């Protein structure tokens, strides 16, 4: 088909939030490269969720359906998609950059002798060639990548890089495909899904959030973060390393593996701004960054910033707010 194939992730009949952003990216690539766009959904009994996409501008929706795709496995998903790609021969295969995609898309690309350009945050088309932008060094540096050699070319799209409200409406039909899969192809056995603790803290409802990162160095230094939050009537949050260390409960983690927040005011203290954190908070109305490193990526999205020693700045800020 030599177009763009976008692989949309679903769980229990519901599409993943970032799937719509990947769909928007695929539509944009398709328009700019003047090629058709196809979607694929994998699972068991996915016709109903495939039908929810018929109102978008797509040339076809492939419902890849098999009992062995009911529970996600990297072996099952990559084998099913490899089959679909070999039959339809898309030029580009686009994924949302989800945990599941990270788990199987590099394997699929390897089976076809290709490399996935993962975690794409931007793109442009130069003389008919697709150039993809991704971040290196935890977001401190950007890099342009292009594909070489034969199609298919694989890319995954970072959350927040493309806007789902830019989706083009249209009319598409669903085509059911049953891949050839046998139980012995699937070597890993997925067992039960579980959650460790109920979410008691809803950071999403907070108007103001004060968030701490690695820069606070010691658990004891959280006291001044809490004090600042109290002065502002704010919730306390953190980037992943703080919660990994057990200094704050996991429910207070903001980022791709924690909560997504969009308060009126987000104060990031000692947070460098790795993409995993940024995707969880960049929708905040006003962002303040306090960090000693002037090149920290957090300053790229901050409205206001202070470069300096947080151990001097935070106490001064508490004092100024009193």
């Amino acid at each position, binding site marked *: 088909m030599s177009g763009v194939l976008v692989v949309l992730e679903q769980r229990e009949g519901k599409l993943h939030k970032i799937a719509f952003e990947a769909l928007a990216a695929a539509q944009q690539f398709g328009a700019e490269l003047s090629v058709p766009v196809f979607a694929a959904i994998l699972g068991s009994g996915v016709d109903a969720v495939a039908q929810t996409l018929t109102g978008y501008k797509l040339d076809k929706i492939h419902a890849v359906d098999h009992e062995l795709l009911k529970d996600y496995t990297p072996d099952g998903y990559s084998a099913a998609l490899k089959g679909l790609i070999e039959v339809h021969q898309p030029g580009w295969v686009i994924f949302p950059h989800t945990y599941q995609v*990270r788990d199987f898309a*590099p394997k699929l690309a*390897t089976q076809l002798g*290709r490399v996935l350009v993962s975690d794409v945050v931007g793109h442009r088309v130069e003389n008919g060639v697709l150039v993809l932008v991704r971040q290196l060094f935890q977001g401190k540096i950007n890099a342009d990548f292009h594909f070489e050699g034969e199609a298919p070319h694989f890319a995954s799209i970072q959350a927040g890089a493309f806007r789902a409200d830019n989706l083009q409406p249209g009319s598409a039909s669903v085509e059911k495909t049953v891949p050839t899969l046998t139980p012995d192809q699937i070597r890993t056995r997925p067992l039960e899904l579980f959650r460790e603790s109920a979410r008691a803290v809803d950071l999403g409802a907070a108007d103001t959030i004060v968030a701490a990162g690695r820069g606070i160095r010691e658990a004891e230094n959280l006291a001044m973060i809490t004090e600042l939050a109290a002065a502002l009537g704010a919730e306390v949050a953190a980037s*992943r390393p703080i919660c990994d260390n057990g200094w704050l409960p996991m429910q207070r983690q903001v980022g791709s593996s924690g909560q997504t927040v969009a308060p009126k005011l987000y104060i990031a203290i000692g947070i460098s701004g790795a993409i995993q954190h940024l995707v969880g908070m960049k929708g905040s109305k006003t962002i303040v960054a306090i960090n000693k490193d002037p090149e920290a990526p957090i300053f790229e999205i901050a409205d206001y910033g202070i470069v300096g020693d947080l151990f001097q700045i935070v106490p001064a800020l508490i004092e100024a707010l009193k």
Partner: protein
Amino acid sequence: MKIVVAIKQVPSRDSLLKVNSSATWIEDADLTWEINEPDAYALEAGLQLKEKAGGEVIVLSAGPERAGQTIREALAKGADRALHIETDEAGITDPLTLARLMARALEPEKPDLVLTGLQSDDLGYGQTGVILAEAMGLPHSTLIMNIEAEGNRIKVKRELEDGWFQYVEMPLPALLAIQSGATKLRYATLMGIKKAKSKEVKRMSAAELSGPGGVSIRLERIYMPEKSKHSQIFDGPPKEAVAKLVEKLRFEARVI
């Protein structure tokens, strides 16, 4: 159990990075280097597994000569021996090419378990482990928080999105990409550092391991990101900077 842990040497996390004059990579002459932090968690998982189930931990690293220092540090923490794939100074920017070299280096070893970190701090593809599993013909799982060995099978706890977890079972040999932060990292002891000096590091060149297979992506150029917002940065003594910030938050943004 024979456990291989793949580790990478990367610039220290607090490095001030500069793009080189040809915009192909960073200026790396004056940097300090350390183990890629996610790989330190993979090493820790490997060492803990060895302590429980016995066996040996072999460290595998691809990088220029300076990576030898990071390998020694892993040996000092308790790894038994190491394989060093020596590359030129620039290293390898294509994860498939790298994983193919690693797979060839591991052919004579036939490990029961290969562990990698989740992603590297420098290139950050988050793919080398999964590609290596495919190149070695092994089943794999990623974002692993915990490993239980049960004979010739393992049961792992995998992190999913949104606070969910899942147990996954698979036969050995297998490859696991370890989630960072699930355990505390150990420090090397003085005894460990002393012992590391006599541990075996087998060096092989990337050239002697290379085989068929071209590249399908190319890193064209690197650059500092453009600021997407116009940030106002306040400087001066902390008190003055803070006063300016508070004024802006009160009267411009009106959020406090």
